[in-house]
């Protein structure tokens, strides 16, 4: 009996000292993400990620073409780099560009490549909306969503290692494996979409990313509300690959409340956005 009491005392002590140790994983989503994170990336893994991302980025540019408008490109880069200063992946150099299409969407390729369509920008009304979309895409890169899904790393078994062989010669099978991995990444962007939990993580990340950079995170909500009404071919891919807007809007509002963000105290930069839009052709 005495021994049993000692055991019970120790168990109680553990639960008091370490409440998280006895909580279910569902109670601690943030913790879940950390524990689910892959082992620490090596410098070679990062290089492989960038090389893989370049291939995806080249395909995105091949599909839509670059929107050649220097003032707008500069503006999008200024907004993007303002957010990148608060990224948790300082090892990446982020690149931002506008795709020449009326389709409404934005894309992220591993390694730091972020694209936003001209059609999406046309639907925006202030800078915080643009920041929200960019921050969401940055969330996919920072969360390593494609990297984890396709197991992109520098080790021999990885599909992405095929690029090294592709460049340096290598076998046909390695080239096919690499090419197939890029195909899968494109399928994710255009057909199947990211995993639902990855989209949720990117939306939640967008709220915090915008807030720490000084942008009103409700900008993304306003943008969603506006484009949810724009049904048709321009949003076909976006609708097919993302969760419903109403669910995302609720999640964003909850995230803003949970983080106690005073959106009124943060910036929308409506005038600066309007000034930048004058440069559009």
């Amino acid at each position: 009996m005495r021994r049993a009491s000692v055991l019970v005392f120790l168990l109680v002590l553990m639960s008091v000292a370490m409440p998280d140790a006895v909580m279910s994983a569902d109670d601690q989503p943030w913790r879940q993400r950390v524990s689910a994170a892959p082992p620490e990336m090596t410098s070679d893994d990062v290089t492989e990620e960038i090389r893989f991302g370049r291939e995806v980025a080249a395909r995105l540019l091949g599909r839509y073409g670059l929107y050649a408008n220097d003032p707008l490109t500069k503006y999008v880069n200024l907004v993007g780099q303002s957010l990148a200063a608060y990224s948790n992946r300082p090892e990446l150099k982020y690149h931002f560009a506008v795709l020449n299409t009326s389709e409404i969407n934005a894309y992220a390729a591993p390694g730091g490549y972020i694209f936003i369509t001209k059609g999406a920008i046309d639907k925006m009304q202030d800078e915080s909306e643009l920041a929200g979309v960019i921050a969401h895409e940055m969330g996919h890169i920072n969360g390593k969503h494609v990297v984890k899904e396709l197991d992109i790393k520098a080790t021999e078994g990885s599909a992405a290692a095929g690029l090294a062989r592709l460049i340096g010669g290598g076998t046909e099978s390695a080239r096919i494996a690499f090419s197939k991995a890029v195909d899968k990444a494109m399928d994710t962007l255009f057909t199947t979409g990211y995993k639902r939990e990855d989209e949720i993580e990117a939306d939640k990340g967008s709220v915090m990313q915008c807030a720490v950079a000084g942008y009103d995170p409700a900008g993304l909500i306003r943008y969603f509300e506006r484009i949810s009404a724009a049904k048709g071919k321009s949003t076909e891919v976006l609708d097919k690959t993302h969760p419903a807007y109403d669910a995302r809007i609720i999640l964003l509002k909850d995230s803003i409340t949970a983080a106690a963000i005073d959106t009124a105290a943060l910036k929308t930069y409506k005038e600066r956005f309007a000034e930048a839009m004058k440069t559009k052709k």
Partner: protein
Amino acid sequence: MNTKRIFVNLVISLVVCLIALQASAQETYYVQSVKAKVHSAPSFKASVLGEASRGTRLNSIGRSGSWLKVSYYGKDGYVAAILVSVSPPMAKHTMIKAGDADFQQGVRRRASTYTSAAAARGLAADDRRRLSGEDRLDYDGLERVEKYTISDAELTKFMEGGKI
């Protein structure tokens, strides 16, 4: 094995678990962003205790939603979890240089390589045409994107709310 020994082993195991869990609870995090504000409470409305710069080590003592509770100069503080990581910040990885001999060789090879990969995957002629059209590769555009830079001075001015 007698009952006493089992009991002693159980107690030792629990104590070891307790120590290990306690140690893991105080994980070290590193600031990854240029700077990270440390708030007095898990809220953007809370007062700011200070700003930790990139690479600063922070000992976590808990968490609250999207916030990490840290020990900051003897006080409890909160930092946005998206700004920190358990690993020290890595050095910036530069892009593959367009003038790199290996890279150029790779680009030259890639068109034929891609076609052969598509054929080897058993794609029909229509699929191959789709790949060469919809999924064509634009490396010139990519190079333009990668070469685009803005100066630190311009970015700083912009972040401070200045005009474009």
